[in-house]
């Protein structure tokens, strides 16, 4: 195959099929994709660095805004790590409420995905249906937490709002409605020829590839790998709940759809259990402003897969390091494997099937001087210089102080 046979098709960053900016370069031979290159980083804002300059409580609200769809995932993963360092025991009622919002978030995220998947295959009716049903759970989240998205529900040591008995009934009532609707979608996925023909054998990812690439979440479970942090390493109150990990052996986009719809049914089961088992008592424990020295990791099963946070405290009220590893980072690498040998027209749905979230993923950026032939990277002194001038612009200047210290050192 010569270079002339291969056509490179760029997709994005602004593209009707992608709601978030990401650039994909597809090497095509005729209609078939031979290779896919990914270029992300459009959503990189520098949150991890900013966390080091703000207090633990401020970071909570900043980390919640890593991603608006799984905001509760990031904030829970972070508070779990901080609570572990500080040795805070969260009251059981706080943990139950945290899990309740987490599961409601999963409902909203999976229904959102179902709609987006429908849109990507040109089945806009499904988008309108599932987003209409999604409004039911959005209302619940708004009633329980005070906001439709970016709930601000977690705090270090527990949660910020309690649930009333009327709200409990409301949640149960809405769960019944949603379950009925989800049953309809499950039936639809089983019978509807439009869906089956469009999704089957698209974006195949074998079990071996899942294990090799370390894929997580519904994408891994749809290839027959039973991998779920809620079961493998239970956090919050998942150890007390009775649920199954849904897997499928289809290994394609159709399997991913079935897994997500099946997970929705399990989530309704869990919501009912959470509300019936909900203990009385306090919703939050008092957290100290300064967090002791120490480090902790925290794993959380976000709607898209395993969310991982690392926090290191140095005894002050600001963390020394916060590291976030979102599920899309690993799942993204599987997309090029899925795309190989596929059609260009299947690209949007294959990408959408992992439920990508670039704002979760974009945690680093590489600075390059493109005018130079050599790859430009900041050397350590240059980066330090940049930091000094950045802080000086903000009004933080230690030049005088360091001169004084240096002269004192000389005298000694």
């Amino acid at each position, binding site marked *: 195959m010569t270079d002339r046979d291969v056509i490179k098709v760029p997709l994005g*960053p*602004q*593209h*009707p099929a992608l*709601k*978030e*900016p990401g650039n994909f370069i597809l090497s095509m031979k005729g209609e078939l994709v031979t290779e896919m290159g990914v270029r992300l*980083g*459009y*959503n*990189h*804002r*520098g*949150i991890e*660095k*900013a966390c080091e300059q703000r207090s633990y409580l401020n970071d909570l*609200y*900043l980390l919640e*805004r890593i*991603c*608006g*769809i799984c*905001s509760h995932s990031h904030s829970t993963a972070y508070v779990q790590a901080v609570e572990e360092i500080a040795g805070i025991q969260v009251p059981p009622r706080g943990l139950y409420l945290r899990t309740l919002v987490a599961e409601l978030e999963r409902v909203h995220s999976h229904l*959102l995905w179902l*709609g987006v998947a429908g849109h990507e295959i040109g089945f806009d009716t499904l*988008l*309108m249906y599932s*987003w*209409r049903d*999604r*409004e039911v759970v*959005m209302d619940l989240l708004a009633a329980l937490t005070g*906001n*439709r*998205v*970016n709930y601000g529900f977690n705090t270090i040591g527990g949660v910020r709002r309690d649930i009333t008995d009327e709200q409990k009934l409301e949640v149960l009532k809405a769960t019944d409605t949603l379950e009925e609707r989800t049953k309809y979608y499950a039936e639809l996925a089983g019978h509807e020829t439009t869906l089956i023909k469009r999704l089957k054998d698209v974006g195949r990812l074998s079990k071996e590839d899942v294990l090799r690439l370390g894929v997580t979440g519904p994408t891994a479970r749809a290839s027959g790998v039973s991998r779920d942090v809620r079961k493998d390493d239970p956090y919050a109150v998942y150890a007390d709940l009775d649920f199954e990990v849904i897997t499928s052996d289809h290994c394609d986009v159709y399997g991913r759809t079935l897994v997500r719809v099946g997970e929705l049914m399990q989530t309704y089961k869990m919501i009912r259990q959470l509300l019936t088992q909900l203990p009385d008592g306090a919703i939050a424990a008092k957290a100290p402003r300064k967090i002791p020295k120490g480090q902790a990791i925290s794993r959380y099963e976000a709607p898209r897969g395993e969310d991982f946070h690392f926090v290191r405290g140095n005894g002050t009220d600001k963390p020394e390091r916060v590291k976030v590893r979102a599920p899309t980072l690993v799942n993204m690498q599987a997309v090029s494997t899925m795309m190989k040998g596929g059609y260009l027209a299947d690209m949007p749905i294959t990408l959408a099937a992992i439920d990508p*979230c670039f*704002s979760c993923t974009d945690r680093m*950026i590489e600075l390059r*001087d493109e*005018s*130079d032939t050599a790859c*430009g990277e*900041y*050397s350590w*002194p*240059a980066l*330090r*210089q*940049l*930091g*000094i001038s*950045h*802080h000086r*612009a*903000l009004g933080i200047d*230690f*030049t005088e102080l*360091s001169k004084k210290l*240096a002269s004192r050192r000389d005298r000694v």
Partner: protein
Amino acid sequence: MRVVDRIVTWARLKSPWILHFNSGACNACDIEVIAALTPRYDVERFGVVLKGSPRHADVLVCSGPVTRQIKDRLVRIYEQMPQPKFVVAVGTCASSGGVFDGLYNVMGGIDSVIPVHAYIPGCPASPKAIIDGVVKLLTALESGQAVPVERPRIDYNPMGENENLIAPEQLLRSPQKEEGPSSDVL
């Protein structure tokens, strides 16, 4: 107002086609923009249609703070839209940078890069607020308060106009400065 102008304004108001662009947002405003288009809120009944191409759009709906990497894309998409064009900044981040203001890879609000006609606050702006913002923009258009900004091409400068930071090129091209301890100590 001349008759021709009145007809043009009427045509403009009847069916504003929008282009949604995520300029580094956290997805929250984006899903609320889509929620405004779906059955509960359904702005499509007012003729608002989400388009995929900037060349078909009248209104650019932007969400999120402008990151350094997305900046020239945003300018390019703005340039590609036909005149008259209007920009709506959805959410606090798009309006002012919000919680991300001051981060090293964030330029600030949308108006730090392209002219903005309407700001919709909220984190995220709820679909109701988005509809309200769009209606206010249309009302302002009708009364002639909001006029499309006629301005020359925006020259793209990767480090911004009033940037206090040292441009990376300067740092990279001065290896002789790397030797020896610096006199500036932070």
